[in-house]
């Protein structure tokens, strides 16, 4: 499961950020909760993936002052939202095709 997850981390991160802007730990928690514990990443590896998405202009981030400390909050850009829609469509097509063959 973890190996096949590697190729889809970007889509998963974009999908979580598509719901609401959040910080790194919030992303990891959302992934874990939504997948009911199946997607249990080495949490630190989320950050390089976020930096990569930032480099591609799909995500932007800024420091936000919280009650106790500053934290880096990530949000989807317009380009990121478009990429998410595109990737979701491609994924749906892939899953439907797999299902049709495996059924």
């Amino acid at each position, binding site marked *: 499961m973890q190996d096949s997850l590697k190729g889809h981390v970007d889509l998963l991160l974009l999908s979580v950020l598509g719901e609401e802007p959040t*910080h*790194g*730990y919030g992303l*990891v*928690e959302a992934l874990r909760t939504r997948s009911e514990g199946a997607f249990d990443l*080495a*949490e*630190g*590896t989320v*950050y*390089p993936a976020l*930096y*990569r998405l930032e*480099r*591609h202009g799909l995500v932007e981030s800024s420091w936000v002052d919280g009650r106790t*400390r*500053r*934290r*880096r909050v990530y949000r989807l850009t317009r380009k990121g939202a478009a990429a998410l829609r595109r990737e979701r469509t491609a994924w749906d097509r892939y899953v439907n095709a797999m299902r049709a063959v495996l059924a």
Partner: protein
Amino acid sequence: MTDDFLRGLASSLDAVGVRGSAARRVLLEARDHLEEAARDGEEDPARQFGDPQQVARLVAAELATGGTRRATFTSFGALALTGLGYVAVFALVPAAGGWTDLFGGRVAGAAPVLALGVALLPQIAFVAGTLALLRAFRMDRTPEAGAAELRLLRHQNWVALGAAGGTIAAVAAYALDAQGDLASWWVWATLGLCLALAPLLVVAGVRVARAGAPMAAPGAAAGDVFDDLDSIMRIAPLRRLGLPAHPWRFALLGAAAVGAVGFAGGWYAEGDPGSGLVRGGFEAVALVICFAALGRTLGLRRTKM
């Protein structure tokens, strides 16, 4: 516990060349992450975060790719401004008194060096800068580039910036050599422009050098210009030429094209085909020599593994 982990992460980041504000950001985010996880009652947050060396390597690989790519855009910006300055300076020569005889300057023996600097170096800067830009754009589609790919990109930038630096030095030398023959406003404007452009090239060079600090992913071979132009190389007539496997064929085709343009330009400018032949021949021979000297450095032909 958290502090111990962060100390380990800091030293891992330093070991792979992630320093300064980039390292501070990673460490601040990691601290926030670990404290939040501890507050949530997560068991052993540091272990959940992962091996600090692996995290540091992934961060470095990403920063190496992004940083080298951004440095290439800075470099190309500096080159573009230098190119505009170069064109403006020579476009104003007729208004400043007309072209002077390069071989009749004040310093005996300087003419061939000046001619090479003014005519050949800008072309090298243009080609190397364009190759770097092409590669940087292609990287936009790659997750992270390998060390060899990024090294080649930095080399292309170095050659471009070096040639541009040589160009403005030659232009400044030409302006000093032409004092008295050309209007003084042109001489001073040219020297001022050269002085203004030099720091831009230096800043771009520093950015390229800094981009090489984070350790890139091992990755595959550096590839060459044919990888960067993959979609164009798939066009049937070009594919049939087999250029990626025969880079010298590519060089000779380029020399023929450049020679033909030089011939036509020389004939038009000087009014006789003999001058066109000299100029075209010079351009073609220069291209072949540059290909032999810089082909591997610029990724025009593959580096032997």
